[in-house]
């Protein structure tokens, strides 16, 4: 896990239904949710099952942390501090092995080498003492 000095990107607002996700990120683990009743995975995490609308059957499970790039864009312009100095960066949607998609950045590679379908794996960057952010990088295998 790497630490970035002087984090100037937005930070997540953590509430009860999302706290286990952010706490697991701090430990370097990616947790997602699965419904015990209908068996569906879901992302982003929430306090109910978005598929069967059960409100007492959501369980946290560890994701493999592996997936593929579903789509991406190399961003050359973003006026927001924290990102303005990062361009060009890769904004992407990664499909996890468990079948759910999430937004991320593809890091630790040349932006021009990213392709759709490329295997990637999770990597973590510590933003503050409380918050660690998951990113994805090209798969090591």
């Amino acid at each position, binding site marked *: 896990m790497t630490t970035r000095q002087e984090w100037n990107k937005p930070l997540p*607002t953590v509430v009860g239904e999302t706290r286990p996700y952010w706490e697991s990120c701090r430990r370097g683990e990616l947790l997602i949710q699965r419904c015990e009743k209908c068996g569906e995975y879901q992302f982003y995490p929430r306090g109910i099952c978005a598929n069967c609308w059960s409100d007492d059957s959501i369980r946290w499970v560890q994701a493999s942390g592996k997936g593929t790039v579903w789509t991406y864009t190399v961003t050359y*312009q973003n006026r927001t501090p924290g990102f303005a100095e990062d361009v060009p960066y890769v904004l992407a949607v990664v499909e996890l092995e468990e079948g759910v998609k999430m937004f991320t950045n593809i890091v630790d590679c040349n932006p021009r080498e990213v392709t759709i379908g490329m295997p990637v794996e999770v990597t973590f960057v510590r933003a503050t003492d409380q918050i660690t952010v998951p990113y994805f990088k090209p798969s090591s295998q």
Partner: protein
Amino acid sequence: MVDLKHGAAIVGIHEHVTRYAPDKSELQIQGESVIKALADAGLSKKDVDGLFTASSSIRNSGMNLADYLNMYPKYVDNTTVGGGSFEFHLSHALTAIAAGRINVAVITYSSLARSGGVSVGTGGVGRYGHPRLDPSPDSFEELYGLTTVGLYAMIAQRHMHLYDTTSEQLAEVAVAMRRHASMNPEALFRDPVTVEDIVNSRVISSPLHLPDCCVITDGGGAVVVASPEVARNCRHTPVWVLGVGEAIAHQGAGKRDLMYIAAKQSHEPAFAMAGVTQKDIDMAMIYDSFTITVVETLEDLGFCEKGEGGQFVSGGRLQVDSERTDKFPINTDGGGLSSNHPGMRGIFLLLEATRQLRHQFEGTPRQVDNCQIALCHGTGGSLGARHSGGTAILGRD
């Protein structure tokens, strides 16, 4: 379901011609637009009993607008679902009028995006103007530097991957819009551009180039919608609401294939209500925030198969003055890509479709030949994350 076809008509319109109005308030632009649209209809303040508006900058937009206009509407709707809001308003006004709750509705919008220096497409999280992210979905998205253009670019990238769509094909959309803008004296950009100009221009968010993105302007407008009884006594031939549909598309808890957009859901009820098919549509106003928006929308409205949108828009087919026998004119005002885009452009789709159905440009190249039925489809939000889609099919007697 109650038959809503011909349940209401657009009877008055006004487009505020400003593209830059640093000395006006947004409410003033709306007020001026409402007054002129009512005059266009031949109606007055006392006739209006329904108020519909959307804003990303005016707090409590319905209340504050009623206050500014000093009116007491019986029916208020400030549904705000991004650029498609006004197609939703038309749908809701139709329902309220057909139910007998109101007789005359005004729909209005304004924004000062340009004079306010709003980076609509590339502002990132700063576009919201507040640093605290909502627990969800913001907190799982904005950490990664999302931009509006980026969320459309990702859909364009995958469209190219799956269907071999090219940057040249996307550029064809922008070229057609510029061609139409050259016929519109109010349009922001009127000089011709070529496919080559566009594919050689600066990339904002790959694969989208600068001219693949809409312009940023100030602006506004108003639409007056009335019951059939009122409509028949107005100044212009009524433009009937034949069918409407509305939908939201989102990530589906991480499972949805967002290559299919809200238009896929919203067009079916609209066509069913209108009792027409795609072949009956003479022209369309397709929300053109970005060139990819047009390609995806044409596909998911059923004008071509999924993946064939790039081919569909090629060869000048979208241009109103094309020699092609299979031409399909869209956005004859120049669209958001060349005419104006104050942030939520959906109201302008209703305005230009109404002008076309009134045959207002008869004898000029801008007029769609024998225009009897037009389709408007507004998209709001972001294709790659979550967005609204409002379809409205309009026709003349």
